[in-house]
């Protein structure tokens, strides 16, 4: 009896917390999406009108497509720059190349930094006049390549992607490294008896055996890419400047629901509709990814 009370006492507070601050806002966002809003005052029930508006009427439709396209680009770019590089780093750390002990920490260190810090840090790095990137380019005689990275359409989104990859690359590295360390040493010896090629070792043996780690990393990257908000908010602002070149669904939703830089254009109904669409898209696709990749996992 005492044990049951004890368990109840441990479970109820976090459950209440989650219900109040996670479940309730999600459900209420669902509900808000079906009403018309005048500022923060709820108007009449409008059915799917808000959804129709953000998907099919201008200017929302163009903005939605623009932001969604950027998220897709971010996802694939980070898949290569963050997960791909993370896998290679993990392989180098696992094979204990010289300096592995130092790099194991160095690679993971940025992950523990807050996104706010990383955002401001990279804004400084990329400053057109005083930033370390342009100064280094000029210093090495590559001054012709120096440019306002965050200030032009062609480079701004990529600058954010690289900042994010730098920040988070330690996470897939850590997960892949853990996956590799589960591979028995004799299996690696067995491959070495059959080939010298690192490529064959990686592609035919190591990669298939770390697939369980890949499931987690892929799913989290997918969710992260489509929920991307803090870094673009800090580095590019709520308007996704310049000219919405860095606009992503997170910023777009926030701007629509709560107003842009100038505080205008606030529309709670359309914002909620966007939030619901983002949520459903992520939940369905992430569920599908997890399900499909799980089926291919291998027991060592």
């Amino acid at each position, binding site marked *: 009896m005492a044990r049951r009370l004890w368990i109840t006492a441990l479970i109820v507070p976090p459950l209440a917390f989650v219900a109040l601050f996670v479940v309730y806002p999600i459900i209420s966002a669902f509900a808000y999406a079906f009403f018309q809003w005048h500022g923060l005052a709820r108007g009449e029930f409008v059915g799917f009108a808000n959804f129709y508006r953000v998907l099919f009427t201008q200017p929302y439709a163009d903005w939605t497509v623009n932001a969604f396209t950027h998220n897709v680009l971010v996802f694939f770019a980070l898949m290569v720059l963050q997960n791909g590089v993370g896998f290679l780093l993990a392989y180098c750390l696992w094979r204990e190349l010289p300096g592995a002990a130092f790099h194991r920490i160095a690679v993971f260190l940025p992950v523990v930094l807050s996104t706010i810090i990383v955002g401001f840090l990279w804004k400084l790095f990329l400053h057109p006049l005083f930033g370390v990137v342009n100064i280094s380019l000029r210093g090495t005689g590559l001054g012709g390549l120096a440019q306002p990275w965050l200030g032009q359409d062609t480079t701004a989104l990529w600058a954010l992607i690289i900042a994010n990859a730098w920040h988070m690359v330690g996470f897939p590295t850590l997960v892949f490294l853990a996956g590799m360390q589960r591979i028995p040493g*004799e*299996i690696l*010896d*067995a491959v*070495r008896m*059959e080939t010298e090629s690192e490529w064959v070792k990686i592609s035919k*043996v190591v990669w298939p055996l770390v697939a369980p780690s890949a499931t987690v990393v892929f799913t989290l990257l997918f969710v992260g890419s489509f929920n991307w908000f803090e870094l673009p908010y800090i580095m590019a602002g709520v308007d996704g400047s310049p000219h919405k070149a860095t606009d992503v669904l997170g910023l777009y939703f926030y701007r629509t629901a709560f107003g842009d830089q100038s505080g205008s254009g606030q529309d709670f109904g359309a914002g909620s509709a966007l939030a619901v669409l983002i949520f459903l898209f992520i939940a369905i696709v992430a569920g599908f990814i997890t399900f499909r990749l799980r089926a291919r996992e291998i027991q*060592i």
Partner: protein
Amino acid sequence: MARMTLSGIKKSFKSVDVLHGIDLEISDREFVVFVGPSGCGKSTLLRLIAGLDTISSGEFHIDDRRMNEVAPSRRGIAMVFQSYALYPHMDVYENMAFGARLMGLEKDEVEKRIDEASRMLRLDPLLKRKPRELSGGQRQRVAIGRALVRKPKVLLLDEPLSNLDAALRSDVRLEIARLHREIGGTTIYVTHDQVEAMTLADRIVVMNNGKVEQFGSPRELYERPANTFVATFIGSPRMSLLNVERDGSNLALAGSGSVNVSRLPQSGERELVIGVRPDAMAVSTDENAKGFKGSVVYTEYLGENTYVYVRLGDGTLVGIRSSASVDLPPDTPVVIAVASEEIHYFSRATRERLAA
């Protein structure tokens, strides 16, 4: 053809020396077993031969070709690992085909070799299974099959029976002996089990503390052990060693009297170690019998024989094989007779064999 020459092979891990200069000459088609207690360096030596670890100093040749710097996959060597090390994500067929394809063989040739190996090892019904769906013995056969499809000049086996249950062990042992004859290459087999070593080997390398104690046929090792280590390592129950002093044609053991022997070492040393196997001694309860005096500690009844363990006057415990009818309670005073033709003599100082 695969004649292997190891000369002055040393291996150190950082400041720890694991192998202190190994010299071996292994002939073509020979079945050689490395045996020794754990930590003696036998697996390390096998890994050096395979090329999985680098040789610190010394030279290793296969058929007069220096192998020190040659990659493991190019030495013409295949290895069967203790844990089998099958690729968990490939089925049995793929496990065997993987290495064969990497050798650049034609598709037909790969298939032919897998057919051959799976017939030899009775793997046909298992080809589509994944390693986790196989029993220990089946995994073992796949691991051997994977090695065979590469048609290696040299086959290395690292404690291949240690993960199998006792009943399966003797079957697989016979299987390995048969395979060695059929494929006609050189085989090196590592084990800590002297029974495996004795039954399989053409020649045995007995290792201890990173050195070779003796290299010879099972018969040589059993009948003419080179030193006290080999003497006690080979043979079960183990040979008893007694510290005796020579006194004319008598051997005296402190506190147990002396025995007269017909055969003594040619060298004149007074302080000797004699080695006597359990079946070269006899127990007698007759106080006037000739031999070393002692008292019974315990007896082991094994059905066909009884082993009697006796504490001698200087505290040494010796095991004697007796007929099954013998049943002596502890503390019975007994006399141990020694068959002097079967005594092995060793120097007390060097522990090396003395010729008699």
